[in-house]
């Protein structure tokens, strides 16, 4: 049995709001195996980013805190380690890239210095060696004239270039896990494809696990091995990429896949999921997706379904309807 790289169990993150608190992540479970790319998919506000920040323990300066569950990274529970131990993992064995390449680099420091920081910190290199390594990393992410670029400032680069720099920075200490929070959302479509190719290439070369957070199913299909679909701070479906696109189980996943525009189909109107993500402070009692669901049953409104494995398949779904369908006529899949 291969050891799991990351095991997230019952992760719960709450945010203080006024007197009370709201739960942004309500008991999330998933596993990333060594060298695997797991996609974390869902609409804005479903808790994807908060999940990733919780794993990295980067909730400082937000009113949020982890209130339950565990995050095991190679067996170590990250929710229990000291700040110092966490700092030794961050940027080293576990690195992160963010959605906004335009603002994720410090405008007043040279690119080279920002790249050298984690290298000197985690690999213990001296200035000269760290600089060489930084230039090497920039070349690796396909940046031309890397020697000059290390002495330039972030505002002299385009968004795509900055995201490459961010990737180079994250990869510089050969992390075992890379968390990418919407790495291509802020970029032009052509640049998106380049960055995805780069990430795919680097991932294969370095044999690292990846948690890819996105709302773009195209990105998922391109890069991921397995997918976790989140809705309202919960995992609603988990499946391999092929299974998910071929036979989505949860009505929410079906809705997501249907709302992707398709070429060569004469569509007048894009399909969309009616309604909005519920406000975190006013959650429906039963299934959180029930108010927007086309298959809603009476049971859905009062009782929340569990995330259960589907018999005979390596996948899970949190839905009364599919669970009922599968037990009554399992062959209908």
């Amino acid at each position, binding site marked *: 049995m291969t050891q799991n790289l990351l095991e997230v169990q019952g992760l719960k993150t709450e945010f203080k709001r006024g007197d009370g608190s709201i739960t942004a992540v309500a008991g999330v479970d998933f596993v990333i195996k060594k060298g695997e790319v797991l996609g974390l998919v869902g609409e804005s506000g479903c808790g994807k980013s908060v999940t990733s920040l919780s794993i*990295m323990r980067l909730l400082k300066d937000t009113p949020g805190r982890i209130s339950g569950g565990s995050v095991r990274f190679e067996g170590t529970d990250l929710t229990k380690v000291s700040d110092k131990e966490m700092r030794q993992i*961050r940027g080293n064995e576990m690195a992160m890239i963010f959605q906004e390449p335009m603002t994720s680099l410090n405008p*007043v420091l040279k690119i080279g210095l920002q790249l050298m920081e984690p290298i000197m910190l985690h690999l213990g290199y001296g200035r000269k060696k760290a600089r060489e390594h930084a230039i090497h990393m920039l070349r690796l992410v396909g940046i031309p004239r890397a020697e000059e670029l290390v002495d330039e400032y972030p505002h002299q680069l385009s968004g795509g270039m900055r995201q490459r720099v961010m990737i180079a920075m994250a990869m510089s200490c050969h992390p075992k896990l890379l968390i990418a929070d919407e790495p291509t959302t802020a970029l032009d479509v052509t640049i998106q494809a380049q960055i995805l190719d780069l990430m795919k290439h680097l991932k294969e070369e370095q044999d690292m696990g990846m948690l890819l957070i996105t709302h773009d199913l195209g990105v998922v299909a391109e890069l991921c091995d397995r997918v976790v679909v989140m809705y309202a701070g919960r995992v609603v479906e988990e499946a391999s990429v092929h299974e998910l696109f071929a036979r989505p189980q949860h009505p929410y996943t079906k809705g997501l896949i249907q709302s992707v525009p398709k070429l060569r189909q004469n569509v007048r109107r894009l399909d969309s999921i009616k309604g909005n993500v519920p406000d975190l402070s006013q959650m429906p009692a039963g299934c959180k997706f029930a108010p927007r669901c086309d298959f809603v049953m009476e049971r859905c409104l009062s009782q929340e379904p569990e995330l259960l494995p589907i018999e005979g398949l390596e996948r899970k779904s949190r839905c009364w309807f599919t669970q009922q369908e599968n037990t009554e006529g399992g062959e209908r899949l």
Partner: protein
Amino acid sequence: MGRYALQRLLGVIPLLFIVSVLVFLFIHLIPGDPARLIAGKDATLEEIHGIQEQLGLNLPLWKQYINYMGDLLSGNLGNSIRSGIPVTDMLESRIMPTLWLTFLSMAWALVIGLLIGVISAVYRNKWPDHLGTLTAISGMSIPGFWLGLVLIQIFSVELGWFPTGGVDSWKSYILPSITLGMGIMSMLARYSRSSMLETLREDYIRTGRAKGLREYVVISRHALRNSLIQVVTVAGLQFGFLLGGSVMVETVFSIPGLGRLLVDSILFRDYTVIQALLLLFSTQFILINLIVDLLYGVLNPKIRFSQ
């Protein structure tokens, strides 16, 4: 950077010209005739005319301005109406105490103000922040003349640590500098707190933490320099206002500086001295703004390169 600095420097020249014209016009707008003042109450009309002619006051305004600027550029600011002493000599003997006072005040206000601001921001809503806020609000609310008198009472009269006034040794500057710097220190503490809080919310701060950097490094290397960009503006403006404050502090601590000279000259309508002081103060203000602009360039590469 060189080009940027040169541009800023050249930009100062027209400003200085405009300021000199305005100061000159203001002085001439003040009612009252210097010639009458010099001649005394019992002077005859002929005597007054004589003095006017001697001082060039009968010439058209633009000619007077050119004469004045010509003298100014050759280092002659005229003589004091009150004492007849050359104005340049008066300024020379008075400028050092004021320079010491303002620089010492600014120096401690900058260091302590920034320190309080940064600590307040980092420990937001915890006791160091509350203490910092209390200090800053008190510092802003206490009137300078009162603070000066209280300091004299405690540290000079009761404890005898520092002299009550004068400029005999470095010790004489301690209490006046505390008095003069207090308001600016408080202002800087508030500004650097809010600007630091804003900077700490930036994405690159999160990037710094995601690299595994220590919080101390994140703040000192990534946050401080970015928040300084805003603080420098306020510090520059405050520096200009220090001159106004020095008038009061020099009076309370009986320091023979430019501030006291200005008050005395205004009381006696010593036009030549007032005019020279106004020019000096406004030039100083412009130069400080120039320094602020240059500091922007040093702190922010975007400004440096976009020129």
